[in-house]
């Protein structure tokens, strides 16, 4: 068994820049989901590289608000499971992901070191800026 995931720093991070000035700052920081380092071009490259067929399953692990899994699923037609620990991150991404993907997206709160998912379930996994 693992000790609980230590994501307290992230939990605090997701509570920052939620004010009006914070929203302007995030919007001016570039990218469609500011705070992440993956650019739109890089996410498009990922979508082209993983080559998922419509309906295939994609896991975005340590997804935060759901980027770049959202764009990859949008471009490929894949179904997306978006997993992270801080519920606040999932909450902040929910409306946007629903709008982009409708019923093709599931958000799950969970520890990426011990996923409650059977072997061989996904055709592709993306994992951006999580490793530490």
């Amino acid at each position, binding site marked *: 068994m693992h000790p609980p995931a230590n994501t307290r*720093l992230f939990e605090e991070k997701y509570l*920052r*820049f939620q*004010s*009006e*000035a*914070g929203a*302007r*700052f*995030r919007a*001016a*920081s*570039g*990218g469609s989901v500011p705070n992440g*380092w*993956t*650019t739109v*071009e*890089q996410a498009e*490259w*990922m979508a082209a*590289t*993983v*080559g998922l067929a419509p309906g295939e399953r994609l*896991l975005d*692990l*340590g997804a935060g608000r759901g980027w770049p899994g959202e764009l990859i699923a949008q471009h490929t037609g894949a179904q997306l499971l978006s997993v992270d620990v801080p519920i606040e991150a999932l909450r902040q991404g929910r409306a946007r992901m629903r709008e982009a993907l409708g019923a093709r997206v599931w958000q799950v709160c969970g520890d*990426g*070191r*011990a*996923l409650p*998912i*059977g*072997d*061989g*379930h*996904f*055709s*592709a*996994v*993306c*994992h*951006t*800026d*999580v*490793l*530490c």
Partner: protein
Amino acid sequence: MLRECYRVLRPDGLLVVAAIELTPNLKDLDLHRALELGPADVHAEAALGEMLQRSGFELVIERDVTREFRVRIRQRLDALARNEQALRREEGDDVVHEEREKRARMLKAVNQGLLRRTIVVGRAEKSLMQTSDGVT
């Protein structure tokens, strides 16, 4: 976590990982400076591609995106400067200060060639494992 990625992927399924990592083969002093300047969660254990291979993946592509990463950090610092007054009022001085320090340190480390950002793609090679288990 890479092992979990491997486990939940179907045979030949693809994994895409992006991470900020230390420039490989840094000498003692540079390594020390990189760890000091880099973000607390910089990936430092081994090169990303090597980590993937250790977890059972065949390395398919490795792409250095440090140049774009540097642009993003600059954009963030600029956006912070442009919104500084309002951010200080609405988020507090500490939040603004901490954000600026953190990003400035990151930029310095990238400019000095100590940090890079990499995207790697790996394929979950599972048929080999089956052979060694005597499944085939």
